[in-house]
């Protein structure tokens, strides 16, 4: 969705992984090791005539997100479970995953509710419709609300990341608290507080699960 939310890339990626190993990813060799032309030619991978052919490298196929415009995020601590190119990816993946989760949970709840509410000795079509009605009542309701919450959470989270320049658990918890408060903001202070605490707890739990999955 980068065409929708076109974002400016900041040029802050001086410390990417390739630099630490000393090999420039564009050149294929370490420039500090070179003193003469013959060394460049004899360096392994330096000048390979097969790589100069116009059709070289086609067997590798299109590599996943290897274009310069589509670099992955370099923000400290922002590396998640799936590669992310910035806040639009976080927003889309986070919202989509939570929406589908809510839809699935609500739908399965509605499925069992519908099975229980089937009228006695009804024909098959009526049984099917009862179950489907319950699924479509519960699933989208839970999914929509969870999706809106996740959308707000991700917007706050990315805004805080951009503001602080790094991502950590405090960002997530504060973003969760703000999203919960905004979600219930028209109901009064007490529901706002409850929703805020619940969402902050959910954000903290998610950060913990993500840390375990990433092996940190």
């Amino acid at each position: 969705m980068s065409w929708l939310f076109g974002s400016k890339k900041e040029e802050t990626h001086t410390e990417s992984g390739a630099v630490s190993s000393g090999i420039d990813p564009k050149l294929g060799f370490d420039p500090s090791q070179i003193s003469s032309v013959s060394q460049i030619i004899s360096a392994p991978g330096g000048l390979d005539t097969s790589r100069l052919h116009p059709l070289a490298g086609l067997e590798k196929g299109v590599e996943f997100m290897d274009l310069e415009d589509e670099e992955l995020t370099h923000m400290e601590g922002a590396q998640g479970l799936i590669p992310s190119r910035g806040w639009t990816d976080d927003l889309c993946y986070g919202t989509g995953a939570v929406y589908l989760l809510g839809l699935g949970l609500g739908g399965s709840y509605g499925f069992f509710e519908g099975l229980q509410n089937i009228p006695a000795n009804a024909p098959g079509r009526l049984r099917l419709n009862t179950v489907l009605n319950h699924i479509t009542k519960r699933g989208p309701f839970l999914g929509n609300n969870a999706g809106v919450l996740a959308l707000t959470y991700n917007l706050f989270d990315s805004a805080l990341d951009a503001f602080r320049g790094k991502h950590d658990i405090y960002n997530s918890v504060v973003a969760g608290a703000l999203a919960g408060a905004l979600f219930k903001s028209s109901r009064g202070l007490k529901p706002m507080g409850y929703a805020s605490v619940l969402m902050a707890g959910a954000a903290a739990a998610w950060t913990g699960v993500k840390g375990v999955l990433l092996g940190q």
Partner: protein
Amino acid sequence: MSADHTRDPCPIVILNDFGGAFAMGVIGGCVWHGIKGFRNSPYGERFPGAISAIKARVPVVGGNFGVWGGLFSTYDCAVKAVRKREDPLNAIIAGFFTGGSLAIRGGWRHTRNSAITCACLLGVFEGVGMMFQRYMAWQNKPMAPPLPEQQAPLSA
């Protein structure tokens, strides 16, 4: 149409499209239902009316957009996997199945009409996209550098 490198590979892109379409629906729905609720409320109740319209309707709009986008992306990936090629026909076939799936509870006629309408809509989208692409290519076409002015031969 060549492969689009700004999009992720296939199974995972469904999640991205779900979220993106949902976000689009929520943001657009906020504007739409905010204005609608504002205009349809009596004086003095206009801002509360706009807020309650947004609260009531926007998650539904977002969900409808999200389900459409996610279903379309799912069918698009499935069609790509079956046909093993990427061209405008993929989107049209995926649109046909999406429209049919969303209308499947309305009966056979409704399902058929909705599928055909959706396929036509996607066909128009793809056509406009291809026209736009042609136009951009025509604008950026390679040009021969202008020749320098021919020098007049020196007269004797």
